[in-house]
């Protein structure tokens, strides 16, 4: 299939973010080690990003390289670093690891906020962050027969019927341009905005983010007609199209 011997693909990786507020290498290493010792298997070879955008004062290239080495020595894998885009240090090009774009994730401060006590010199924050890469839509042209199961990481489009006893699942939306007679589960990873659309609603079960409805209930709302299913305030709504 590929002449080049490889394929380039997008992927989502869960990483740990080390947000440095005050640079004091010994303190950082000490407190970080303490955290690691609590759950060593979680941190072992875990990918980590060093973020210096919240630092009050600047940091030199030597200090920064030392920090990378110290963090690596603790068994973590430093995969990149982050900085306030408006305060990029002059030495940014000489760093050996990649500079990553600034975060949009909310940071959760794990340190106790206590104004009477002196604030600790170093606060290690672990922000588990997922970067979402849009997933490709899966398109199926053949009928989905009884006993078959189809799952899509993104949206699922079926240009044929889904037979009774078949099951279609998607992390995103589901479109069925034929009769939907089997089970359709959209937003299976918890996406409450996912919807199901179909030409002829005859489903055994429809579900969005775990909220489901069976055919007995569906019959009283829309049956053998086009419909969409969406979640409104934790309850399923079946709307004729």
């Amino acid at each position: 299939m590929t002449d080049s011997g490889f394929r380039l693909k997008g992927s989502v990786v869960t990483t740990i973010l080390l947000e440095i507020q005050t640079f004091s290498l010994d303190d950082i290493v000490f407190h970080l080690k303490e955290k690691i010792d609590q759950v060593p298997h979680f941190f072992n070879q875990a990918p980590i990003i060093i973020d210096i955008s919240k630092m009050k004062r600047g940091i030199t290239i030597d200090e920064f390289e030392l920090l990378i080495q110290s963090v690596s020595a603790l068994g973590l894998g430093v995969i990149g670093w982050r900085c306030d885009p408006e305060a990029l240090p002059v030495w940014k090009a000489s760093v050996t690891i990649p500079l990553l774009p600034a975060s949009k994730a909310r940071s959760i401060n794990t340190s106790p906020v206590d104004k009477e006590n002196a604030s600790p010199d170093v606060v290690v924050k672990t922000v588990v962050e997922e970067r979402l890469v849009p997933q490709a839509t899966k398109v199926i042209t053949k009928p989905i027969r009884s006993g078959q199961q189809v799952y899509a990481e993104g949206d699922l489009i079926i240009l044929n019927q889904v037979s009774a006893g078949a099951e279609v699942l998607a992390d995103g939306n589901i479109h069925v341009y034929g009769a939907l007679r089997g089970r359709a589960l959209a937003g299976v990873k918890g996406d409450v905005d996912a919807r199901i659309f179909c030409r002829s609603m005859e489903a055994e079960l429809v579900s969005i983010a775990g909220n489901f409805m069976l055919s007995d209930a569906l019959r009283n709302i829309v049956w053998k007609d086009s419909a969409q299913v969406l979640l409104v305030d934790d309850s399923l709504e079946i709307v004729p199209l």
Partner: protein
Amino acid sequence: MAKIIVVTSGKGGVGKTTSSAAIGTGIALKGHKTVIIDFDVGLRNLDLIMGCERRVVYDFVNVINKEATLSQALIKDKRTKDLFILPASQTRDKDALTVEGVQGVLEELAKEFEYIICDSPAGIEKGAQMALYFADAAIVVTNPEVSSVRDSDRILGILQSKSKRAEEGREPIEEHLLLTRYHPGRVALGEMLSVSDVEDILAIPLLGVIPESEAVLKASNQGTPVILDTESEAGLAYMDAVDRLMGEERPLRFLEVQKKGFIKRLLGG
């Protein structure tokens, strides 16, 4: 190049073997050299329906295991020229069927025959999967009731995912729906699914509708394929189905409730 046709259904007792015998005979009557293979190892029935049970010496499994040659195991039909039967083994089970073994037998048959009809066992397990694995076309036998239709739907899914054609990404198996044991009177009363109900659920082309008929049971007990009974509606409906399989146009018949004649009503028939 021989055409391999599997007669399958998922559900048991819907008329697979009756249909295999009738359709195989019908194709042979048209002058095509045809062999019907019984894949129901352990529950051998085709030889009974074909009336050749007393002539079985060697069987399909013997040929796979090279204990007998094909010409020793093949039984030539006495009524129909160009028709042969390869019986199943009654003493073995489905594990005796191997992909390589079945492939070898089919390749050898393909040199000599134009049509190879594989009479599948019921179920979706090994025996049924072996029967459909090498198929070019499938006749899905269905009764007009929900459980049979559901099982046919399941077997259609297997045809399109577990057959050799599907695995090699070749043109998919050609699908034909054969509706058997159809009773127009009960359809009119709403006790049975209609032709259009079944077509709507399965969404595959209709090859034929065989009406429920006493002639089928009579033919089975006599060991004569019902297609040879040209007096019966079932026999004629099978012949129509064979004609359609050969690419001819035939209108559907025997779908309407027959009005009882005056005399018949008088006699309470």
